[in-house]
């Protein structure tokens, strides 16, 4: 018996970018067209692979919707297990889609100004994909570092003083966070003797006394590392500066990287501190909930306080991170379903907005921006003397409509995906057990969360509108900017996806419900990972870890 070929697909999201990235490294800049297309082919491959993984996890090809790949044929707690389930397959799809949009955007300009842009980009994808797939804590650290090392290079792409200044802080913060990651991992290993997530979840209920206290310290230190990445207040001050400084196609990948932090918290927290975890159950839930709320407040206030579009996008990403963390900490399966929908929708929205900013900046010359501000400050009414019959240039129409769509998504107004996400979250908060299951009193924290989400939406509307008015109506731009087709297409693509998410909300929520159910059933997961057989005949048989334990 050998491994079914479909199981090798689990490893493709890591191997393909690694190989393509290595292949691109020795090519000089004279080959930039070839580099671009190779990179493109890799992303199309990742996209197809992610779709295939979704089909297999959701289509019943794998038992319990989990495909497991045991690296080097070591059985679960001893080797590294890679696991694809509905949630990770979906995140892989999101990565491939955003990567494709980002790459397409770099075609005319950004991809050509640095020699190793495409190589670093592939390594970044490898790190992100690996972090979504791995189920070993130390391997997660390695993938985090791969992702971060690539992102350090990418943030510096298009080397100027502002990017260097932002990088100095970004790298220092992340190096410190990596050390926290290591400390947490070491403490967890010291108390439980394992790094495999499934084995860890099986052992946590057995901890007691000093060991449990130490384990909690370890988990907290580890969480600090993820929350720094996920920009929870007060760990997220680095984010707006970095986003505003990075080149747009890189910044949109950074948006995804903050979501990696949130994803890991979602998965690990629900797994390790689930209701089955005995004395450790629910540890830190309040910290996530209130930390998330504080993050929403910080992000919303930040959005209102800035008039730079890049920083605004950064604060919007902070708001979305905060909402997610609060949703996770609230500890309710139905809410997590809506939360994942929100994660995807808001990531796409902020990513599209970041790409749009560069195009908008072309009409927002420093002179016109200053003029708009001055007129506002002195309350000058700028009534046009006469109506001229000139039509709006197509480029301007595209920019303003796309901006309006982004604003709607970020603020969560109908009819786009942001509204569906917020509606879903409120529905879950108000009806914890579904419609018709009787009225249940909503706890105060639930009400506070709802108020904060609505208020953050309101503040987002105000700040986006202010920016839109200053840019499109008061800038006095008479000439339409030159837009390249390769720059317009990814924005249209992302906005189209958002429309699709809205139209297809029902099947999507169905899928997310199953994904959320998967991660709320740790027992099945633990059993599946630890019972996964190795391929016989290639190595001497390793003793099955389950022989001494009872299957749930």
């Amino acid at each position: 018996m050998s491994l079914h070929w479909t199981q090798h697909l689990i490893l493709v999201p890591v191997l393909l970018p690694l190989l393509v990235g290595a292949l691109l490294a020795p090519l000089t800049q004279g080959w930039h067209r070839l580099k671009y297309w190779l990179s493109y082919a890799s992303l199309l491959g990742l996209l197809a692979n992610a779709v295939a993984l979704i089909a297999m996890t959701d289509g019943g090809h794998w038992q319990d919707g989990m495909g497991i790949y045991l690296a080097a044929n070591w059985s679960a707690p001893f080797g590294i297990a890679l696991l694809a389930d509905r949630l990770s397959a979906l995140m892989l799809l999101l990565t491939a889609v955003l990567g494709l949009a980002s790459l397409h955007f770099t075609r005319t300009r950004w991809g050509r100004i640095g020699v190793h842009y495409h190589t670093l980009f592939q390594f970044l994808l490898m790190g992100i994909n690996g972090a979504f797939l791995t189920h070993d804590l130390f391997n997660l650290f390695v993938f985090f570092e791969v992702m971060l090392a690539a992102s350090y290079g990418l943030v510096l792409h298009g080397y100027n003083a502002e990017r260097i200044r932002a990088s100095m802080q970004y790298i220092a913060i992340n190096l410190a966070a990596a050390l926290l990651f290591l400390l947490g991992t070491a403490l967890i290993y010291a108390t439980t003797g394992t790094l495999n997530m499934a084995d860890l979840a099986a052992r946590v209920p057995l901890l007691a006394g000093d060991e449990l206290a130490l384990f909690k310290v370890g988990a907290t230190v580890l969480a600090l590392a993820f929350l720094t990445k996920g920009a929870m207040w007060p760990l997220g001050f680095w984010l707006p500066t970095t986003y505003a400084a990075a080149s747009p196609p890189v910044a949109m990948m950074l948006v995804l990287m903050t979501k990696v932090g949130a994803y890991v918290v979602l998965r690990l927290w629900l797994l390790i501190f689930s209701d089955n975890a005995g004395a450790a159950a629910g540890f830190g839930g309040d910290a996530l909930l209130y930390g998330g709320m504080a993050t929403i407040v910080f992000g919303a206030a930040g959005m209102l306080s800035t008039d730079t579009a890049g920083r605004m996008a950064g604060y919007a990403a902070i708001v979305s991170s905060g909402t997610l963390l609060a949703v996770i900490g609230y500890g309710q399966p139905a809410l997590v379903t809506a939360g994942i929908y929100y994660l995807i929708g808001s990531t796409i929205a902020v990513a599209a907005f970041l790409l749009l900013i560069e195009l908008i900046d072309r009409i927002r010359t420093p002179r016109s921006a200053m003029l708009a501000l001055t007129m506002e400050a002195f309350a000058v009414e700028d009534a046009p003397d006469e109506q001229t019959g000139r039509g709006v240039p197509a480029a301007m129409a595209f920019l303003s409509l796309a901006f309006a769509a982004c604003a709607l998504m970020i603020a969560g107004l109908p009819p786009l995906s942001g509204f569906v996400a917020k509606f879903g979250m409120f529905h879950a908060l108000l009806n914890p057990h579904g419609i018709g299951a009787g009225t249940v009193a909503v706890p105060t924290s639930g009400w506070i969360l709802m108020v904060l989400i609505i208020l953050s939406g309101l503040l987002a509307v105000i700040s986006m509108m202010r920016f839109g008015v200053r840019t499109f109506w008061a800038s006095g731009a008479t000439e339409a900017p030159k837009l390249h087709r390769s720059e317009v297409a990814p924005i249209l693509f992302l906005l189209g996806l958002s429309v699709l998410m809205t139209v297809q909300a029902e099947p999507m929520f169905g899928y997310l419900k199953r994904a959320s159910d998967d991660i709320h059933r740790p027992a099945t997961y633990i059993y599946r990972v630890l019972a996964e057989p190795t391929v016989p005949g290639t190595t001497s048989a390793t003793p099955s870890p389950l022989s001494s334990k009872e299957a749930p």
Partner: protein
Amino acid sequence: MELVISLAIGIVFGSGIWLVLRPRSFQVLAGLMLMSYAVNLFIFVMGRLWVDAPPLTHAGTTPNPALLADPLPQALVLTAIVIGFATTALYLVVMIGSRGLTGTDHVDGKEPEL
């Protein structure tokens, strides 16, 4: 032995934190390096302290786990050292770039106004 090594790790890590909070980029770099040394030692110690216990088994014999040191933290430390070394080197490059482009070694990229 436990007390000595935990004090040593604490002192190195503490000095690292102090240096990281300093305004000059070289101090920050030195602080990060000190912190990573402390963390590496910490990981090593998390496999418990052993004297005269090898982390390897001899081929052909049945190993007795009580006589062997835990090999896993040692493997982790190796990985952590390599990754830490690489990222620190990268930070050094950015630091030199920043010094060249902004003309100052302050972490904010500009001298504070006095």
